[in-house]
């Protein structure tokens, strides 16, 4: 059996009354690039927050690198995070530090390298995302896409063995997109790092992943290699992969009938106007 980097065992999670995940179970094998796809609002970001131990599931267990995130001590959790990298959807750079200092931050915190060594490593990382020239700028002086590239360099700074990416492909121009997705792929294949990519970009995610999960309404509706998924003909999966607005997967956030909202009928009973369809 292959070792698993992440295991979700019967995980349920709710935001108040809204059920985000219901008895979700899946594994992320070590050293693989795993894509988790799903329409926006299905809980992909929430899934990553569970993996990082920032929130706890209501029931069920999340294991990361063999550790049960519910039982682990706070200090152990912080120790574990030193070998994880996370790319936030917003980038989440430290706004009072320059690009250089942002990427240097994890190195300064967790290694005893001298200044020269750190400079060297930071410039390598920045070069790999094409932003070595922006090292002296502040995050506010960069575009959203550039900020996320810096954040990617920061997430990779310590060469973690598991990196989680929240929507790594949004806001990038075609050239940057190609470079970044190859970078993620290389990190996985060359350094044998486990990659977890969470995205709604089907094509790009499928291109670089070994294993895909498709998430909808708190459940996994399809899984397997990109080739497997192409062959799978479950209607929910087909609708998502082919980008059709109508089908078993709802495009709309749960809401009362459209017509009812427009004409202001309370409840969902429609009594005043009848549509003749």
């Amino acid at each position: 059996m292959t070792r698993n980097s992440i295991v979700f065992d019967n995980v349920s999670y709710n935001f108040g009354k809204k059920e985000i995940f219901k008895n979700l179970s899946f594994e992320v094998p070590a050293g693989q690039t795993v894509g988790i796809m799903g329409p926006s609002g299905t809980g992909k970001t929430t899934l990553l927050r569970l993996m990082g131990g920032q929130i706890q599931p209501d029931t069920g267990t999340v294991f990361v690198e063999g550790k049960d995130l519910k039982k682990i001590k706070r200090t152990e959790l912080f120790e574990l995070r030193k070998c994880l990298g996370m790319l936030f959807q917003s980038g989440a750079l430290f706004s009072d530090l320059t690009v250089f200092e942002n990427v240097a931050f994890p190195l300064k915190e967790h290694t005893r390298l001298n200044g020269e060594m750190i400079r060297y490593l930071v410039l390598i990382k920045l070069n790999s995302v094409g932003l070595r020239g922006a090292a002296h700028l502040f995050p506010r002086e960069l575009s959203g896409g550039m900020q996320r590239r810096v954040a990617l360099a920061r997430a990779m700074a310590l060469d973690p063995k598991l990196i989680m990416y929240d929507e790594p492909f949004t806001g990038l121009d075609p050239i940057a997109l190609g470079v970044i997705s190859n970078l993620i792929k290389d990190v996985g294949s060359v350094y044998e790092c486990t990659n977890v990519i969470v995205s709604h970009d089907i094509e790009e995610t499928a291109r670089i992943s070994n294993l895909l999960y498709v998430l909808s309404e708190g459940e996994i509706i399809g899984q397997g290699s990109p080739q497997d998924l192409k062959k799978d003909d479950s209607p929910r999966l087909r609708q998502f992969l082919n980008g059709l607005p109508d089908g078993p997967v709802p495009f709309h956030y749960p809401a009362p009938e459209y017509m009812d909202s427009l004409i202001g009928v309370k409840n969902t009973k429609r009594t005043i106007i009848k549509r003749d369809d």
Partner: protein
Amino acid sequence: MFVHALKQIGRFSFEILSSMGRALRLLSSALIRRPDHRNIPLIIGQVYQLGVLSILIIVCSGFAIGAVLALQGYTQLVRVGSESALGLGVALVLVMEIGPVVSALLFAGRAGSAVTAEIGLMKATEQLASMEMIGVDPIARIIAPRFWGGFIVLPLLALMFSVVGVWAGSLVAVDWLGVYSGSFWSVMEQGVDFFDHVMKGIIKSIVFGFVVIWISLYQGYDSLPTSEGLSTATTNTVVFSSVWILVLDFFLTLMMFEL
């Protein structure tokens, strides 16, 4: 109707209790972080941010209030011919009461609100979350240094306030109104006791500093990550701090001055 009101009260008290619980948890986790040698520069940075940058407003206010106290005091005392006690009166009022209270109020408005806004924005832009994921605990890195910085700084600011106030009072009384400078200073010297008066003022400002910085940190850390959430949090910092300062001042006075 009645049941509804009861439910509202229940929910409201639950909200207050759980919020107090969260505030206590934040405080205790900030306090138990072992002071690491790497934290010292961070604390010094906060002493600068919260303290040094507040000096201007403290000095100006202390000057104005000291001058007003001397003017008001003079008009009353001169009628009974005891203007020689003016220095003593100004000094006691400043050191025991107005110095600690007003400088704490100013500190809440100038430094407390800034701390709340800073931390609230860091939270809203996920900087705290990303720091956590890098494996650096934001409580140790962001919260604790601000706590210690604020805690150290307010008593010093309050003393500075009182000293400047007394000096302004002497300018008004001695240099302008012509109170005899020998009696202004010597009566003050005889009447003001370090342990009886100055120390009690310092204790007050230590308590106020603790409360104001705690409220400010908690409001920022617990704020909703929205523009409205941030504005509410900053307002709450100033309002709650001010009320607590005034209420605590009453009880501290009651306790320390054995009435």
